[in-house]
């Protein structure tokens, strides 16, 4: 087991290196870097001298290979450099945005799971009934409902018309307010964007759970348990659901990087300063240190997520032998 882990971690390095190299190259060929650095606009294009000075200031005259290696060496010391725009350390803006996105995504995923697991299992037990059919159709519709319409509707109804919830932002209370008050204020601001992010994944996860549980219900061990006289209720909720959790573990692994992947749309409409907007704006501003740092973090999380998914699967189903699987894969 530990040998497997070591091999997996070592194996991740070339992948990570490849991802950073590719991103670096893509950014190199993306036009407009000097224009963004010069804060240019159509009424004010920079002169040739200005551009030359910018290239010197930001060492853009050095060959790309050298700049890439320098960036890598700094990365080894977890020095992500500073933003070309505001000259603040990248880690600062990164952690501020990551924290906001993490809370938002964790809350919406938890909400979605809390509803989707029981709902999907319940419907699997009632498969084929009119209620289940209607529910599934409803979920399909919910899944297809465009998020921008949902966001505007929720805002208009719950914030503007009824005034129950804050419309946008991360908090209104001044720094002088009490800790608890600010926490509640933050939580209230969280509700609308969480609802927006949750309903889509809720529909998806519920359907996923339903089909996994159904599969379990049709398998041999459920038949055997039923023959032993286990009642339908525990068949569904103990035996079938538990087995359905194995694919769910794999899914969770894939969701880990998504926890830090911000939605540009939701963050824009709710003025939530998270990762999606940071990525989008950095790319628009050609703020390369930030873009590269975001890529590295996302890549790391993706690799960690897939490793975690493998381990979870292994714990959920001890029959899966990762060592053997690794051998099969490598031979």
């Amino acid at each position, binding site marked *: 087991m530990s040998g497997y882990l070591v091999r997996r971690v070592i194996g991740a390095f070339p992948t990570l290196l490849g991802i950073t190299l590719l991103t670096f190259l893509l950014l190199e060929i*993306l036009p407009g870097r000097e*224009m963004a650095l010069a*804060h240019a606009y*159509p009424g004010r294009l920079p002169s040739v001298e200005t551009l030359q000075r910018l290239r010197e200031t930001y060492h853009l005259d050095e060959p790309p290979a050298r700049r890439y290696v320098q960036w890598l060496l700094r990365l080894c010391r977890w020095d992500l450099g500073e933003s070309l725009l505001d000259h603040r350390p990248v880690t600062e803006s990164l952690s501020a945005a990551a924290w906001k996105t993490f809370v938002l995504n964790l809350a919406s995923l938890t909400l979605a799971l809390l509803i989707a697991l029981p709902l999907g299992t319940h419907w699997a037990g009632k498969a084929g009934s009119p209620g289940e059919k209607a529910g599934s159709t409803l979920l399909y519709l919910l899944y297809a409902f465009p998020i921008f319409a949902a966001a505007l509707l929720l805002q208009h109804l719950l914030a503007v018309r009824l005034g129950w919830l*804050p419309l*946008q932002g991360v908090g209104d209370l001044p720094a002088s307010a009490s800790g608890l008050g600010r926490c509640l204020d933050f939580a209230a601001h969280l509700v609308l964007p969480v609802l927006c992010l949750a309903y889509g994944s809720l529909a998806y996860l519920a359907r996923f759970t339903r089909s996994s549980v159904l599969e379990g219900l049709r398998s041999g061990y459920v038949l055997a348990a039923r023959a032993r006289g286990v009642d339908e209720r525990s068949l569904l909720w103990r035996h079938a659901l538990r087995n359905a959790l194995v694919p769910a573990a794999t899914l969770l692994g894939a969701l880990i990087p998504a926890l830090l992947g911000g939605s540009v749309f939701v963050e824009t409409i709710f*003025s939530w300063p998270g990762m999606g907007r940071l990525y989008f704006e950095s790319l628009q501003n050609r703020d390369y240190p930030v873009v590269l740092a975001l890529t590295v973090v996302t890549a790391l999380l993706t690799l960690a997520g897939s490793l975690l998914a493998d381990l979870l699967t292994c714990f959920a189903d001890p029959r899966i032998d990762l060592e053997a699987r690794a051998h099969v894969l490598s031979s």
Partner: protein
Amino acid sequence: MLRRNVAVLLLALLVAGCRQPAAEKAQADAGHPVPGDRLVVPIASDPPSLDFLTCTDAWCLLVARFVSDSLVDEGENLETVPRLASSWDLSGDGLRLSFHLRSGVRWHDGVPFTSRDVLFTYRRTVDPASGARADQFQEIEEVTAPDDLTVEVRFRQPTVLALEMWKVPILPEHLSASGAHPPDLPVGTGPYRMLRAVRGGEIVLQANDDYFLGRPYLDYLVFKVIPSPATQFQALLTGETDWSAVPASEWKSRSEDPGFRKRFRTFEYPALFLNYFGWNERTPFFGDARVRKAMTLALDREGFARTVMLGSAVVASSTFHPGQFGFDASLKPLPYDLEQAGRLLDEAGWKVAAGGLRRKGGREFRFSLLIFQGDPTTQQLASLLKDSLSRLAVAVDIRVLDFPALLDRLHRRDFEAVLSGWSLTTDPDPTAMLHSSPALGPSNYVGYASPEMDRLLLEGRHQTDPAQRRETYRRIQALEAAEQPYTPLFFPIQRVALDARFHDVRSSAAASPLRPYPGPLRWFVPAALQKRVGPP
């Protein structure tokens, strides 16, 4: 027609301003101005930096107007008003300008403001290493400070921009001299001091008790980052903010809704911004003025402004804005006339080939149009051009690029046509867009070159007699109309709403009520109506 509509609208606005029902009555009851409350204004994004020397984005410049002071500024009728300079003298030959500075002014950290700060601002701006925009100072020979309260400016030749160029924030010499980067919270002499700036959150300014005009009435100004225009308007409705642009689709119903009119005061004015199509004259298509004119004639700009933009735009006849000095109201925008457009293309040698596109010397009339990504109006305008020209057997390929990538293409002159826009200044001088020399016309990327235009532009720049200058600008506009170096499209009409509890807010025909000086420094909220109490 539309122009007349706008005139009517502006008139209606004036009348509305006179009526101003609920607010006016409350003001009479409220008595004299009192301090208190705060104004919350949404901004679409964090300013990339708060370095007032180099920043070019609208939000940084807006904050700069409150935190720092310029020597002179714009009043409600776009006239030049004193700010840090209490008065000035321009010599008869127009070559020497002396500013007399206010005495007793202090920076927010208590250090006295003197002429050395003005000198420092000038030197930093023209120092290439600072990265600041220095072209407005190019006519200056020398700036000196004979004493602490006098600044002398010597020009190479007389210029009409002598005062205009000094509408820039003055920077503190004692703070900027050492560090390369400005501090996070800039220090100024302005009516508000910077309290905090939270990225992705808000920028908070606090009233400066020692301001030389007296403390402004509103305790705080808060600029809240709200990226989505739709959310900005909703935030006004929930009362989270006090100010918002009103979306064109909401304007009609809202301005007729008594509930809305009671809560908010609305303002509208043509923005100092022009969208245009630029035709690269180095390409085989657009070197001929007849072709460029045909492009303009082929566009139904009035119809587009009325239907797609729901009347929120004024069709432009040239690069001159109706609110600018020298605007020639008698010059009408070119009409929508496909027939004449076709004739002009025929004359220019672009004949319709059998069953296909127009051709000239074996070349098809098919060009690419670059547009910015993201703005829906831009996409609609590009489609308008494509559809209109397809009726003239001319093909357009639309290429969408993001902002820096598009600028890169313009800078390298690597384009055939572009849909873009300019922010205009109060002074109309269009030299940067129309002059053929790279030094004088850095934004003339379409490559327009006319000796007549070059001569008129420089004349206009140095004519200090308003009547003469007006005549020169009339001829420039006529020449623009004849040669169509750009197809001028629209000046968007800005429509904004402000919470009605703010009093003594004056509208301006050409600018946002937030813009003039002292403008918002006079705003106040009567004690009974104060809503946001205590520090934010």
